[in-house]
């Protein structure tokens, strides 16, 4: 509705935006000729754009609120679209087949570059699912997760340089080392929760990176480690194209294994303990759950997947140095989990694909790439705060002996 009040609101919004963007959009200083160029026509564009967009924004918010109200009024709970499609056999089987065909055909249809991007995305799927254990299931905010990724990558690189350890040997070793580091981080943060925990994990991540950067004798410092061998296949000589395809399928396998294990963990006793820990720590203890073990296991198991992802990362890029393991990486992985939907496996997969593939394909927009990326993130959190595919938890079937089990969507 175009009431006077609405127009007034939008007018203020556009004025505010004109004011905010004034320094960067309007003033252009030419430092060579020492002149200032005033580009007023740009201000008009910003004002008009903000005016129109503020209407769109309010319309969308209204729609969202209306949707919420409708959901409250409706008595039967609505299962969201995607889980509903997933549980419907008619859509599920063909969908699954199409996905399998697409996944298998991908490296043969698309270019080497595309396959490489996809491998990166798959590494993030695995690592994201690992962080999902810590953040999504156990509810422990970990901002230093990339440290375990670094542990995995460096354990392969260093073991290979010094002892000639192969990729296949390094994969379990990297996972085990990351597991150990997970416990190492777990101990000091056992008593912490929420913001404090986040800060300590942030510090931990930075410590690992700084050690790698400064301890030259151990990690070769900022110059990093080059010529890390790609994974071998029974000693065959692989061309670049072939070995990339091989790593692609290796990552598909690793991702499938991760999905399988995380699913099993979710439904297990320890998965229930994590959920209890996330929901209420005091009550969790009152249930007879060992808080110490639950927290440590979340950190350690989450770290394991990061370690494996790190080993593959080192093998894929064949060169690593500390700049690959900055806080920014942690943030991206956390975004994968939060954007995808905390606690939801499918959500994390979709989140990883979007977050990694989107910036790649937005390269066409060059300098606006990160801006568009940021806008999409903000929009997502406003309109789908639960993530792209929010977690529809399984309800335990304790329907009792007398009653018929009601059919509930998973």
């Amino acid at each position, binding site marked *: 509705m175009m009431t006077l009040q609405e127009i007034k609101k939008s007018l203020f919004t556009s004025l505010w935006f004109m004011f905010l963007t004034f320094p960067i959009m309007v003033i252009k200083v030419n430092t060579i000729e020492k002149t200032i160029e005033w580009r007023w026509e740009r201000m008009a564009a910003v004002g008009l754009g903000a005016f129109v967009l503020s209407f769109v924004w309010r319309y969308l918010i209204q729609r969202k609120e209306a949707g919420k109200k409708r959901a409250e009024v409706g008595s039967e*709970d609505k299962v969201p679209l995607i889980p509903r499609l997933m549980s419907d056999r008619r859509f599920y089987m063909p969908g699954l087949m199409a996905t399998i065909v697409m996944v298998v055909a991908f490296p043969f249809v698309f270019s080497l570059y595309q396959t490489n991007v996809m491998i990166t995305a798959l590494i993030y799927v695995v690592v994201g699912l690992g962080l999902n254990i810590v953040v999504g299931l156990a509810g422990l905010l970990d901002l230093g997760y990339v440290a375990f990724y670094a542990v995995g990558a460096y354990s392969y690189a260093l073991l290979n340089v010094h002892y000639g350890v192969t990729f296949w040997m390094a994969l379990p070793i990297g996972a085990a080392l990351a597991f150990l580091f997970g416990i190492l981080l777990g101990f000091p943060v056992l008593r912490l929760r929420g913001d404090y925990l986040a800060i300590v994990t942030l510090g931990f991540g930075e410590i690992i990176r700084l050690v790698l950067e400064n301890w030259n004798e151990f990690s070769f410092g900022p110059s990093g480690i080059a010529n890390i061998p790609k994974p071998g296949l029974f000693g065959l000589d692989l061309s670049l194209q072939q070995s990339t395809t091989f790593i692609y399928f290796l990552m598909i396998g690793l991702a499938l294994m991760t999905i399988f294990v995380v699913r099993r963990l979710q439904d297990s*006793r320890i998965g*229930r*303990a994590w*959920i*209890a820990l996330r*929901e*209420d720590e*005091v*009550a969790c*203890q*009152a*249930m*007879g*759950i*060992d*808080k*110490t073990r639950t927290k440590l296991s979340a950190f350690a198991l989450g770290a394991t997947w990061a370690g494996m992802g790190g080993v593959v990362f080192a093998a894929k890029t064949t060169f690593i140095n500390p700049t690959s393991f900055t806080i920014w990486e942690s943030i991206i992985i956390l975004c994968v989990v939060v954007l995808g939907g905390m606690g939801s496996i499918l959500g994390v997969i979709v989140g990883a694909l979007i977050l990694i593939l989107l910036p790649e394909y937005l390269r066409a927009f060059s300098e606006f790439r990160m801006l568009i990326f940021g806008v999409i993130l903000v929009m997502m959190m406003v309109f789908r705060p639960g993530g792209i595919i929010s977690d529809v938890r399984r*309800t*335990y079937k*304790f*329907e*009792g*002996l*007398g009653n018929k089990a*009601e059919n*509930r969507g998973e």
Partner: protein
Amino acid sequence: MLELLDINTFYGNIQALKGVSLEIAEGEIVTLIGANGAGKTTTLMSICGAVPPRSGEIKFEGRAISDMRPNEIVALGISQVPEGRRIFPYLSVAENLDMGAFLRDDREGVKKDVEYIYGLFPILAERRHQAGGTLSGGEQQMLAISRALMARPRMLLLDEPSLGLAPLVVKRIFEIIRKINAENKTTIFLVEQNANLALKVAHRGYVMENGRIIMSDRADQLLTNEDVRKAYLGI
């Protein structure tokens, strides 16, 4: 069944319990009453291992439990309904109950107990798929008690079950407490500010003040005791 021998509990430098001793026999309902900050909740925390006493001894069926971890104490058969209910807000009622049975392995027994709970609190059966956080205060308290019962405890520790509830709901909760005690022979240790109601339900009572037990007697005796009436019953 449970014995506290001269325990001293501290929060940092502040001593909350000063030589507390009490005893609870099997099958009893014992209440601990007292004003705000008397140390009632701390006594419970000491028993369940969340804030272990610095000195003194706690014995459960003759075994010293003062050094045990909270989860080990629950495994012995002491279940706790924490203050402020503390149900899992985003889990459904059924899942909350299931969490209560975390340490149990007998699926059939758990199923039966869920039925028993639904019989005890029909409202919970009605809301079994509803998230715990959307229940009313009284329903949440019922759920918290039910969840503790799911562990099949031999001893139930209740911390202020009347907190923030309407008088009618409180009455109903106390009836259930008595029923649980009578039907399952569950020993109950009830910490309450609502002294009047607590003493009416309990067999015996302890009165606490400034971290010390100052009086203990049969519940009906305490109800008629002049000092208790003046200080805690407001009559």
